């Protein structure tokens, strides 16, 4: 992965509204074909970050480079290489699914190159996102999950090199969410398109992302694969046992040693021993808590 081209480079990004810093010194990179997930609680600055990269918002300071261009000065040619998955609400309600995809795709035809034929064929895209049966339905007749699939299809219709998705599964039921994850995984498998998505759902980040950036209070507090994050912060394991009919429970980063000590001291008198390893969720929560208390101390 590291030999792939850098398509997204953010350095010292800052965003300030009035006197409040919404983002401070945010830096990260993404390489071609990577699935990057911006994870963080609500209000952490995820949407602001993604909108700056989409070219929809002007930053206060820092360097941002998306596909070799500063999004604040991105022209239409740049725009044609970037896909944005917007959350539809009731726009284009009278349009039929295929009609809308064909129409929006037609803007990309002028940006077709020898290497990349633009846009995707509407029918092929409809099949890919699983809307074959709804192809001739009006957009307003679609269910929430179907609409979101259409949103993805619209984001992809120009065959972008980089796709942005802001909270793509917010408000979806579990089944629709699962279907959506499969769609993104399928896209990621092809390895062509770089994907940047935001979520506040840890399980989603773990499932989809090659790399997770944890954003809290406008700063990146962790950056790595799910496994790296779990290692980076030695989350506390939980050890529980019974002795003489009483239950005990202790949190520790050294669970093996604790268990060894227990047996050394009490031998067979120890019962119901259970060691629960720190999960990524615990890691995430302790990360966010730690950052919050540091933020409050400052």
């Amino acid at each position, binding site marked *: 992965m590291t030999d792939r081209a850098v398509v997204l480079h953010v350095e010292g990004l800052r965003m300030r509204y009035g006197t409040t810093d919404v983002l401070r010194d945010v830096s990260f990179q993404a390489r071609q074909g990577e699935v990057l997930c911006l994870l963080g609680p609500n209000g952490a600055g995820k*949407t*602001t970050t*993604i*909108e700056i990269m*989409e070219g*929809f*918002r002007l930053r206060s300071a820092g360097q941002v480079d998306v596909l070799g261009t500063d999004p604040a000065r991105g022209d*239409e*040619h740049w*725009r*044609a290489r970037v896909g*944005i998955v*917007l*959350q*539809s*609400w*009731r*726009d*284009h309600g*009278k*349009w039929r699914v295929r*009609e809308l995809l064909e*129409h*929006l795709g*037609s*803007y*990309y*035809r*002028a*940006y077709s190159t020898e290497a990349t034929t633009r846009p995707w064929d509407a029918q092929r895209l409809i099949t890919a996102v699983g809307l074959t049966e709804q192809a001739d339905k009006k957009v307003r007749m679609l269910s929430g999950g179907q609409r979101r699939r259409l949103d993805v299809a*619209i984001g992809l219709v*120009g065959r972008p090199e980089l796709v942005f998705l*802001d909270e793509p599964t917010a408000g979806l039921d579990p089944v629709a969410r699962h279907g959506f994850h499969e769609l993104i995984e399928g896209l990621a498998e092809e390895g062509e398109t770089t994907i940047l998505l935001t979520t506040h759902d840890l399980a989603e980040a773990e499932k989809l992302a090659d790399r997770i950036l944890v954003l809290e209070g406008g700063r990146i507090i962790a950056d790595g694969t799910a496994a790296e994050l779990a290692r980076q912060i030695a989350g506390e394991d939980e050890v529980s046992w019974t002795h003489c009919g009483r239950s005990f429970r202790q949190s520790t980063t050294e669970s093996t040693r604790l268990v060894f000590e227990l047996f050394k001291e009490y031998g067979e008198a120890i019962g119901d021993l259970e060691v629960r390893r720190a999960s990524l969720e615990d890691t995430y929560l302790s990360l966010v808590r730690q950052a919050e208390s540091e933020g409050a101390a400052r």
Partner: protein
Amino acid sequence: MNPTVMAWRAGWSRGVIELRQSLTNAGDLFNHFFWPVLMLGATFFMRDVSFGQSGFTLGALALPSILGMNAAMSMVSMSQQLTADREDGTLLRAKATPNGMIGYLTGKIISVSGGLVVDLAIFLVPGLFIISSLAVDDASSWLTLIWVLVLGLVATLPIGAVLGSVFVSARSQGLLQLPILAMIAISGIFYPITALPEWVQWIAQAFPVYWLGLGMRSALLPDSAVITEIGESWRHLETIGVLGAWAVLGLVLAPIVLRRMARGESGSSVAARREKALQRTG
């Protein structure tokens, strides 16, 4: 092919698709018929009421004026549609698409003007059966009607786009209706303007509604009807002057205001409006 040309073509087909949609769904069809039918009713009741010693009935004077008023009202549809499209995220999609704003605006111009032509026909065709004293046998009448209509659209659509960008919510669009109704009331649509006090006439002559009405009357009424007009003249030069001035004003302002409005659009601004709208309804 040049991307901009391609966007114009995409915009053209966008406009045609939107027009077709508005002619094939019950709610929009109702809107297309509502005002023309109401106006036909008004014309019907004025068909035998004569205006002073002019020898013309109020119905004959009003029919072309109403056409002109309808043409001017495309300003309102433009403005309202722009506000609605901004609110629901249509505009944001255009912004996320290469040259999407060009396509969007081209499409809007096509669909609003196309819709207007449909509305005018719904009114004019039956109207010609109610009012028989119009001068419609002459090709020059129709030629005048066409240039007045085209010039009127060039004058009013950009202004509509400006209003749509400035008045951000559907609610403020509602408020906009009041001054527009007042403007119609003083523009000599339903009653000749020469019957109004002179200072009111001056105000009316600053706005496009009066001039569109005058232009349409000059197209469809016999020449002898000119005695009901200010200065007993059709004043084509002045019509071109005033409508042209509005066109220039609109065409200068619209790109600036539209660009400024589009700049502020993002996923979160649409989400915020959705949130607000859901709170209102829910």
